[in-house]
């Protein structure tokens, strides 16, 4: 089970109103390499993991991804909560606005809705862990693109934090892969 704590993992400061940037940041709210995909992917893969370390790392990184999802939603909300409607007109957020108003919604930057086809889970820990390592690298690349287009210093700071976490997670999944491979190689029955 999970317990909710009434705090963010990282203090999100947003210095500007910027509906266009908010629309782009939604990529990490509901896009294929976003935080929701990561959380659901890892938490779903736990059952078929052969070692206790692997079950632990998927549980704990999966949980952290949900905290990151909350950070992304907070960035988006803070970027648009005080924007007058006329300033949303003609921006990339306009199509989002006519469906959801200012509420965040899990779709990518171009409006494609989140779907479970973004993730995979197999009864094959090697395949799963390789997917997880790839997804951390793809998320890291996405954060770099977002940092490149971001001119809000507070948002940039939060995006840098999230980018660094992708690198730490990649490292931990690599170590987990070694542990799982060693476990599978030692199980030889004659």
């Amino acid at each position: 089970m999970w317990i909710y704590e009434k705090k963010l993992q990282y203090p999100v400061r947003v210095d500007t109103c910027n509906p266009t940037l908010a629309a782009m940041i939604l990529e990490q709210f509901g896009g294929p390499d976003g935080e929701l995909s990561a959380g659901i992917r890892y938490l779903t893969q736990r059952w078929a993991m052969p070692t206790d370390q692997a079950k632990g790392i998927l549980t704990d990184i999966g949980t952290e991804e949900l905290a990151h999802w909350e950070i992304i939603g907070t960035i988006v909300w803070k970027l648009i909560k005080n924007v007058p409607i006329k300033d949303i007109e003609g921006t990339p957020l306009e199509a989002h606005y006519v469906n959801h108003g200012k509420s965040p919604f899990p779709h990518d930057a171009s409006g494609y809705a989140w779907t479970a086809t973004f993730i995979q889970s197999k009864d094959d820990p090697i395949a799963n862990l390789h997917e997880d390592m790839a997804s951390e690298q793809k998320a890291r690349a996405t954060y770099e693109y977002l940092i490149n287009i971001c001119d809000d210093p507070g948002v940039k700071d939060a995006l840098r934090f999230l980018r660094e976490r992708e690198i730490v997670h990649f490292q931990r999944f690599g170590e987990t892969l070694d542990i799982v491979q060693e476990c599978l190689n030692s199980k030889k029955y004659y």
Partner: protein
Amino acid sequence: MDSKQLDMLKEIMEICFCLTDINLYLDTHPNDDRAVALHNTFSKKYKELTNMYSMKYGPLTNYDLSKYPWEYTKSPWPWEIEY
């Protein structure tokens, strides 16, 4: 939220982050005794600080003790705070 409360909340967030990061490291390095000791130091500090915080400002989780009326929903939500 006044600046004293915010400072304390930020300190809790910082220690919580240290716990999370060491937690992930320990999942794949369970035999690192220095890391376990570090985890325990932060764990104690975290419990102390969250107890102090919730006594003063209300609960951070729905599992904590509450005064009457129910305090959990009263404090600002994480996305409403100006950090």
